[in-house]
């Protein structure tokens, strides 16, 4: 009865007023100025310019999200920029640090591998059984690690993850941007029929890698399967094993990050392979934000299903009014729905009553972390390019 009596909000088509959009963007502008304040104070001109550009970029994108009511296309600009500029800054840093993109085994054992979040799920079992962290990543400049620093990183990741769940994969991960950029290039997909069972791929990779990491006592995914080793740092190929490992990295990168996104218009690496993504899916259960399908408005046109870059919507899930556990909260389905049936939602509240309020709350949290992690990475990449050019 409550559903029948519910008054649906009007469909919004006109852009939000400039004044109101600016007002809503103000917190993000202040946050971005704070994040990049160090670059304004420093003597390095490249860092200063990069900081200013990034600050304006992040604020402008958020303003456009407010003005146009649209999330996906503006977020995508940020995400692709992050994906492209991360390798630039990262490779520059490892070249300065050790003079090569190849990391020798002794450097890894000494804990001078830059910290990466991808092996987090692989560390749990070895740490639980032996109290040993098998990925000796460093978080201090020039290598090294402190216990409190590591704890702070883990705490920050956990806090963000609990709030946005798998939104991490759309607003923070610095690997997904390249494939999202690739997927956006072709006007339409050439490969449309994808067996839905491939969606279980990330879980299979997670299960296999967790078990192998315990057996081999090393982060097996980083050693054997990470496609992004091809654009970050690889195992120094001193023997045939190293050659095989690097061959696997390149083939996976070319296939999952370049070719398949071009053919399918999907984020294939994220949807069918990434074990960290599967791990993050679990936290969609703790996140207060999700996307719902308002059944009273939905005429199953499957536009949302086709638009979803990770195949997180199926006919069954749409009929149930929800997305699958693998939803990355990118907003593609919400933006594409002509009837505004796909809506942002806060758990515990009624569906489609105040979806814009839910979107705003998600975006403040997600864009805050996007600026903090992604923004600083973009600035670092830009500074590297400017350093060469200016």
């Amino acid at each position, binding site marked *: 009865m409550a559903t029948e009596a519910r008054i649906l909000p009007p469909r919004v088509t006109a852009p939000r007023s400039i004044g109101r959009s600016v007002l809503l963007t103000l917190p993000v502008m202040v946050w971005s100025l704070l994040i990049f304040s160090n670059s304004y104070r420093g003597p390095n001109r490249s860092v200063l310019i990069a900081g200013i550009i990034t600050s304006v970029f992040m604020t402008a994108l958020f303003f456009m999200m407010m003005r146009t009511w649209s999330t996906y296309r503006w977020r995508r600009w940020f995400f692709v920029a992050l994906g492209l500029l991360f390798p630039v800054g990262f490779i520059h840093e490892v070249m300065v640090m050790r003079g090569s993109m190849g990391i020798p085994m002794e450097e890894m054992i000494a804990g001078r591998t830059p910290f990466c979040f991808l092996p987090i799920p692989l560390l749990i079992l070895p740490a639980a059984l032996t109290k040993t962290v098998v990925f000796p990543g460093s978080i201090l400049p020039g290598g090294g690690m402190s216990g409190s620093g590591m704890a702070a990183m883990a705490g920050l990741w956990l806090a963000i993850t609990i709030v946005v769940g798998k939104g991490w994969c759309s607003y923070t991960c610095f690997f997904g941007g390249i494939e999202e950029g690739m997927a956006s290039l072709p006007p339409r997909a050439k490969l449309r029929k994808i067996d839905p069972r491939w969606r279980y791929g990330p879980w299979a990779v997670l*299960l296999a890698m967790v078990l192998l990491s315990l057996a081999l006592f090393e982060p097996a995914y980083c050693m054997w399967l990470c496609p992004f080793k091809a654009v970050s740092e690889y195992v120094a190929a001193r023997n045939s094993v190293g050659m095989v490992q690097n061959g696997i990295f390149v083939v996976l990168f070319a296939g999952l990050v370049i070719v398949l996104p071009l053919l399918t218009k999907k984020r294939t690496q994220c949807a069918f392979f990434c074990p960290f993504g599967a791990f993050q899916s679990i936290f969609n259960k703790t996140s207060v934000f999700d996307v719902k399908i308002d059944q009273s408005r939905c005429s199953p046109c499957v536009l949302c299903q086709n638009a979803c870059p990770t195949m997180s919507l199926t006919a069954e899930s749409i009929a149930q009014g929800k997305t699958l556990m693998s939803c990355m909260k990118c907003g593609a389905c919400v933006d594409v729905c002509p009837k505004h049936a796909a809506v942002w939602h806060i758990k515990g509240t009624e569906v489609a009553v105040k979806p814009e309020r839910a979107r705003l709350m998600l975006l403040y949290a997600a864009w805050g972390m996007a600026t903090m992690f992604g923004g600083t990475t973009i600035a670092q990449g830009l500074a590297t390019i400017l350093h060469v050019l200016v």
Partner: protein
Amino acid sequence: MPPVTGTFIFGEALVLGLSSGPACIASCGPVLVPSLLAADAGVRPSTRYLTTFLGARLLGYLLFAAVAWELGVLVALPPAPRLLVVGVIHVLLAGVLIWYAYSVGHVHARSRPDSELVTIDVARKRGISGPAALGFLTGLSLCPPFVVAGVRAAELKSAVAAVLFFAVFFLGTSVWFVPLVSLGCVRRSQAVTTVARMAMVLIAFFYLYLGLAMLMGRKVYGY
């Protein structure tokens, strides 16, 4: 070395097994966990699966121990034959894993009631059960706890004593496998079975690579 009684020796084997349990779980986990998840749900089928797997693993242990003891190479198996033996075992393990993953899918697709006894032989009537084959091959592989037990068993006076030592050691390690029965409580769905089968194939490819590398004389992961 002071004289020690049989009870002391087998007590030592039990304690050694108990303390090596986590390493055994780590070593057998990549084979056992996904194949157990692909099998039927329920505590009873899981217990039956685990019993078969562990029984076959014990057989593999004892067979290897007896043969190696007789040949006098229990501790110091020369590098070349060791690579050959472990390489062949890894290739076989990969083959069985792939075949098992395929068979489980085949059986689930046809909704056979006896899916926990998936035959891995072409001749179904005489087929060997998947868990038995996997357990036997993991028992034969030279995992670190096995080598540790081998070092101690090699000091014993007879092959029978060495085999008994291994049997008691095996009992100690098996205690750690008991909690895995709880995997039977995981509700089986197409998702769980598919994930388990995909993981088995992935792990099989890794073992296949390791096996082939060893057969070509390459040293991988300390073997």
